[in-house]
């Protein structure tokens, strides 16, 4: 079985991986990084969103082996040394989740949205966050949290 080196949240992991293992299953089942969620395994719900070299990627739609040289960031890498990222704090303050299952994907996606810098208005944020389904329906509060972070990032 091929030995694959993956760089996740700044740490290098060497693991044996069959070529048909998705990045999502590698994170969850091989590396114990279960913060990234499997909602549909089909690229339709956004729960498995991670950042690869700063870009939003659905971890269920890409094979782990394809990312040997990349910087992968998962929800576990967002808070630094136990200090929450301002976006994470905003999610808590605005109650931008209920069951919490889509939340890692929402947060990773929102970090991507902020970095992309395209979404400024409420409608643009809603549009940019619409690849991440929240069945609990926390959209109003997700918008408020992301809006706060977008505003913070643009000053």
């Amino acid at each position, binding site marked *: 079985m091929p030995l694959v080196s993956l760089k996740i949240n700044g740490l290098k992991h060497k693991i044996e991986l*069959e070529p048909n293992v998705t990045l999502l299953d590698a994170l969850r089942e091989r590396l114990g990084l279960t913060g990234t969620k*499997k909602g549909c395994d*089909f690229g339709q719900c956004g729960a498995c969103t991670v950042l690869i070299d700063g870009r939003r990627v659905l971890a269920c739609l890409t094979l782990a082996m394809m990312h040997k040289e990349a910087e992968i960031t998962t929800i576990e890498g967002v808070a630094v040394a136990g200090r929450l990222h301002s976006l994470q704090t905003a*999610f808590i303050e605005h*109650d931008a989740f209920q069951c*919490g299952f889509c939340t890692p994907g929402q947060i990773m996606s929102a970090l991507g949205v902020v970095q992309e810098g395209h979404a400024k208005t409420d409608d643009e944020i809603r549009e940019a966050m619409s690849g991440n*389904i929240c*069945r*609990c329906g926390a959209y109003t509060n*997700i918008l408020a949290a992301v809006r706060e972070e977008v505003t913070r990032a643009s000053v």
Partner: protein
Amino acid sequence: MTATVTRESIVGTPVDRVDGGLKVTGQAQYAADTPVEHAAFAVLVSSTIARGRILAIETEAAAAIPGVLKIFTHENAPRFKQPDPDWMNALVPSQTFMPLQSPEIIHYGQQVAVVVAETFETARAAAALVEVAYEVKPPLLLLHDPAAPRFQPDVFFGEPMQDARGDVDAALADAGGRIDATYTTPIESHNAMEPHATIAQWNGHRLIVHEPSQWMIGTRNYLAKVFDLAPEDVHVISPFVGGGFGAKGFSLPHSVFAAMAARAIGRPVKLMLSRAQVFTTTGHRAQTEQHLRIGASDDGQLTAIDHASTISSSYAGWFIEPPGLTTMFLYACPNVRIRHEAATLNLPAPCPMRAPGEAPGMFALESALDELAAQLEIDPIDLRIRNDAQTDPKTKLPFSSRHLVECLEAGADWFKWDRRPKKPRQMRDGDELVGWGVATATYAGLRGPASARVRKEDDRYIVEVATHDLGTGMYTIMTQVAAEALGVPISQVECRIGDSRFPPAPVAGGSQSTASVMPAVQAACLKLRESGGEMAEADAAPGDEQGRYSFQSFGAQFAEVRVDEAIGRVRVSRFLGVFDCGKILNPKTARSQMLGGIVFGIGQALFEEAVVDPRTGRLLTDSMAEYRVPVNADVGELEILFVEEPDYVLNPLGARGVGEIGITGVAAAIANAIYHAIGKRLRDLPITPEKLL
């Protein structure tokens, strides 16, 4: 603890979720996240036909893949007996049928094999190689298929489903039968973000199960019965649940299959349903067709309502959606009749989905009332106020607390309802016609028995209840209630739930957890505080007030829609929900529950429909792309108001549940707003673009 400690007001304040830190960092551990040493993976194989029998099932090619440990089919699976639903003993399977026991196929997606392998990838690849040859019979799929067996269900949790008061036919004849219309709602799917998953592990004769559950005690009792174990030998663990909406309440066969596989291979087994399997094996809201006839006086006093519902049912299930129940008590009307008829079809087993009965039923009733208001040229709010009832017209008991009129009036004020033109098609903004609609919301104020335990460890207090947090905020409000009762800050309280060994609580269904569990938590904490001891337990149960009052929550839903007639597009640009749910224990988490209910209702109104191929019975919408739920861009400005009138008759906290009322009336408010915008009445959900063109 001394008596000098002042009792801070913690209950009723908008405390941030106590589990928020875990949820925003990915540390909250859902069932499939549980680390289990040496686990094997199980993948289900699903039937591709809806009715017939398995002629042959070929597993050799799958078994030949290195890493495959075991394949179960109906030919080699152990024999299990599906228990009957038994509410008295907290044991309620979602379906009447146990798969893998015979070659018979009764619905599309039925489990026909379980493949167990060393890795998920191997199990999935092997599952794809299991070949099934079927003898296909024509499935019964349509509500009006003359070949489908039909029956009249008697009761829904004790409430008669065939019920009447007064003389409906005579009153309808007198009133000239003002409204006579049929409303239809499709099969809908819960689609919680977390797919069902079970990790089963045997420790000798003891079974440990990690799975997302709205009813751990129910699952414990189910697995104990199926495997012939003592209930205390089954341990169900479910600290975080990634949404449920009813689909994780009753017990499901895949839990049995995970335990079966784990016992056979002598290792823990992790069984995760695919999203498609979530659609076909974990329940759905049944299809309904509702015929409403309403009689009223010229000034809008209701004189008769006849509500006849036809419901899709299943060869695999027992649960019957009850859309008519609310009609029996919502308004003061002397002559009311409800009827329910079910058609048994080759569909998966239905189950409760957020506000079962109310969600489809109030779409029909509240749409019909809007039609009546338009016909009589009465404001739809006035019509509802004129027919308000302070005594329950069904039970003749007083409502413990009913503030529907206050909800309607507060909402009208906030929404500036007095600016609403009386006739349709009067408000235009660019290419869009704008409309405003209103509907009543209601849901039962249930309460059941519950127990709680609190322990003191140094300066910390550990509170334990076998209750559930599906995103409802249970962890948080429980912490608030405990802290206030103990007289300590919430930082000193740790609530532990999601474990079947803790003191028992009801199913997280029927919006009853707050009203049931909080009195027990409060009582246990007060007991500890008064005794000054290390540990206290308390039971809390409803008393004789249950026979003296009707308990019900109410609300008013206000929708603003924008309709582009050229392309058939509806946008919900503004929505207000005003709710009377007694004392609100946490305005932040309660508001979220209401927002979520409204978003669910927007989905019901405009998007959600499970489409079954009428020839094959195949579910065509078994993915999150095909079954559309609202996304962020579908949701406009939402606002929530609470008319906060504590209901101390129901319990010492004055609180009723908030989980389900939020969806009720939403689809009607939106359909009524669409009528106001364009003058077209839409009675068939979901209201998709082609129906507007």
